[in-house]
Structure formats: structure tokens, C-alpha cells
């Protein structure tokens, strides 16, 4: 091969590697927000979601609201209908949490330390914290998920959460199971416990399941039911 051809081949190969690396880097989580600002990640169908559509989904969900206004509207660290996206950004920066925006109106944080949410360290790391915002960038929806908990840990944490909610809200509107550690240790229906609080302006849910693959799983959900 002629020296010129070898040089062109090396340049072509180098360019290909560089472009491939650049594309790979742009698909990494840290670059997604940049892509979003540049017009949207072509792979992210979720980027189609707008706060208007998020609100549409929340309003459908809020059809199961209750009739009485809530005596309190507890949520983790933030205040529903009051805390803003800017507040969450400040919190994220101050606590060095790992958060991203899959699309406008949604912030998802991974592996959140309980202390960052004002919780006792014994409650364990929150695998996922999802925060939904309305069209004015006010927090209206919050959910947490903890996976691979020990049955005892899931039982203790769930019961603490439920006790706290009941002290502020009164008895749950619906419930099933009693968050028993022995039951939580068995995959399947036996491990399902859930409580639901329903008010005209607020909804809260706490539930545990054991799907086998996840081990005991604990979910919390706090949502504004205001229009």
C-alpha cells in the first residue's frame, strides 16, 4: 500500500473511532441533558412528554381522590404545590445527589441517601426518587422505590412510614396486609401490603411487594390531587 494510502487509512480509522466515541459519550447519562437542550435525544421517546402531558396523566390518576381535604399533605423533603424545580436543583447541588431529567417535568434521582431527604439513615438508600412538576414547575408528584431490602428492614421502614402518615392523616382509606416481615420474606401475593390515603387535594400510598427477583420492594407515593 502506498504511504499516502496508509496515511489516509489511519486518518479514516482515527476519525471513525473518534466519532464512535463521541456518539457513545453523547448517549451516556451525563450528556443526555445536553442533548435535550440541543433539541432532544433521538432515542428518548420519553422526551416527547411535556409537562402538559404529565399533568394530564396526573389528573387521570387524581380521579381516585377522596372528598375531604387533607389535614396535612406530607411529602419527602419538599412541599407539594410549593417547592419548585429550582428548589430541587438547589437541593441536588447541595447534597450531590445523582439526578437527571428524562423529559421536562420529571426529575429522577438514583441511590438517594436517606439523610438527603431528612430521613433516618436506618431507612436505607432510596434506589429511585421520581419528582413530577406541573406546567409552572411546581412539585406535584413524588415517588420512591427501594429494592432488595431485607424482610425485616422493609417491614420496619414501611411500618414507620405508615405510622407517621397515620399520625398526620388519620386512618388509611384502604389497606391490605400488615407489612409483616415473615410475609415479606416470601415472594408472591403474601408479601403484598398496601395502604392508601385519599383526600380531595392529596393522595398517598405505601406498599410492599416481593417479586422474587427484586426481593422485598417498598414504594411510597405522594401526590397533589389539586387541579
Amino acid at each position, binding site marked *: 500500500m502506498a504511504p499516502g494510502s496508509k496515511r489516509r487509512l489511519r486518518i479514516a480509522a482515527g476519525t471513525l473511532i473518534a466519532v464512535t466515541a463521541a456518539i457513545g459519550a453523547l448517549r451516556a447519562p451525563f450528556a443526555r441533558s445536553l442533548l435535550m437542550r440541543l433539541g432532544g435525544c433521538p432515542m428518548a421517546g420519553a422526551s416527547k412528554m411535556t409537562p402538559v402531558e404529565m399533568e394530564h396523566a396526573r389528573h387521570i390518576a387524581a380521579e381516585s381522590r377522596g372528598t375531604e381535604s387533607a389535614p396535612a399533605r406530607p411529602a419527602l423533603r419538599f412541599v407539594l404545590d410549593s417547592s419548585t424545580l429550582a428548589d430541587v436543583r438547589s437541593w441536588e447541588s447541595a447534597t450531590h445527589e445523582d439526578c437527571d431529567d428524562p423529559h421536562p417535568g420529571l426529575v429522577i434521582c438514583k441511590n438517594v441517601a436517606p439523610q438527603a431527604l431528612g430521613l433516618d439513615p436506618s431507612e436505607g438508600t432510596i434506589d429511585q426518587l421520581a419528582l413530577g412538576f406541573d406546567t409552572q414547575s411546581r412539585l406535584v408528584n413524588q415517588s420512591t422505590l427501594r429494592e432488595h431490602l431485607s424482610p425485616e428492614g422493609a417491614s420496619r421502614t414501611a411500618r414507620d412510614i405508615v405510622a407517621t402518615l397515620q399520625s398526620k392523616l388519620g386512618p388509611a382509606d384502604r389497606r391490605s*396486609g400488615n407489612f409483616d416481615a415473615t410475609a415479606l420474606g416470601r415472594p408472591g401475593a403474601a408479601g*403484598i401490603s398496601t395502604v392508601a390515603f385519599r383526600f380531595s387535594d392529596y393522595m398517598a400510598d405505601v406498599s410492599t411487594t416481593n417479586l422474587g427477583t427484586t426481593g422485598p420492594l417498598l414504594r411510597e407515593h405522594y401526590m397533589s390531587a389539586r387541579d
Partner: protein
Amino acid sequence: MNMRKLVFGLSLTAGTVASAGACSSSSSPTSVTPQDAGPDSASLPDTGTPVDSGSTTPDTGTLVESGSATPDGGVACNPGATLYDRLGGYDGIHSALVAIVGQELANPDIASYFFNQVASPVPAGHPTAEQIEDCFSVLLATVAGGPYSYPPDGGVTTDAGTFVCRDMATIHQPLLISGGSFDEFVSIAASTLAPSVCATDLATIGAALEGTKTAIVYAPFADAGLEKFPGMVDSGAGQ
């Protein structure tokens, strides 16, 4: 006989969803008709544990709480009926699906997978939330031993028009759903059903749901946890 009716789940009935507007939901406009044949080969085994006597329940639009409440707040099973009957027939199953969809949409993460259904208007070629509820109702009615088959001939027809129900893989593979996100979805569905469905029937339904996992989850993400960017799809794809 302690048979009594229970408005399902979170009182999220078809009528209340209808008031939400674009996702109006009611079993009445659906053109799905039961088949003459009895339970087909896709039926789940009727494994309900007898606790309380009961009888077959007619379709009433509500999910049946078949027996007496258990000490832990659960629901006892009705021994005298098929799973399809215990769930309240098609209308009871439909009410359950409406409640489940409502709870899934309440989760800001999972709701992201329904980006087509909360768009206004729903993009052409994609089902409305109501059509999804109807398709899944027929699917669950079929596997529960009801006189249906999936996919229903002629699709499902709602106010938004007719939609031909598709198989699980076709619907979900473009969404690149991870194993972790699937588990979260199932957890929400199971928790929604738990206050109204007895544990044995819940286990049966859960096993049926788990059985769809390989068709729904994108294989390379099967062992992945929750997706940081839910609903990752190629442009225009998705359910």
C-alpha cells in the same frame, strides 16, 4: 352467603375516568363480545382457596369481593366460582384495569411510558388509554377463563374508534423496558388489586403477569434496574 359487591380499588370507576376527558373509559361503548365457547386453553387454573361459600356472580361493573375480610385486611376467596367470576366478569376486570392504569399513571416514572396515551390527540396508529384498558381486559378475561379470546376479533371499539389489539412483544419491545421497570409496574398493579382480590387469585394473576415478562422486557435490559430514562424508544415507536 357473604357475597357482597365492592366498588373496585380506588373508586376509580369507568365513569370517573370518563370525566377526565381524552381518556374517557367505559365498558359500554366497547364492541367486544363474549364468545359462545367456554373457557379456552389459555385459561388459568382455578386455584381459589375455599374460605367462604358463594356463587357465580353476574357482570355488574364492579370487582367482586368474594368473601369475608381476613384479619390482615385482605379478602377471602369465593370457592364457588371461576377466577373470571370472582373478578366480577368482564366488567369487574375492566374496572380493575382502569384502576391499575390510573395508579400506573400516578407514578411519574411509569407514566412516561404512556407518552402516546396522554398526548392530545393520541398519535395515529397508537391506542388510547381506554383502548389499552379494553385490550387488557379481554386478555385478562381470556386467561381467567371467561368466554373471550385474545386478540379479540375485530379489535376493540371505543369513542375514539377501533383498535386492533396486538401481542405483548409487538407493543412493548420498542419501549426498551428494563427488568426493573417491569417489576415496578407489576408491583403497582399488584398493590392496586390487593385490597379487593384474595391472595390466591392475586398470586394467579401475578404469575400470569410474570409470564409476560420475557415478551415485554427488552432482553439486553432484562437484568437492568430501573431505567434512568424511561420510555427510551426510536422516534415514533411505542404503544
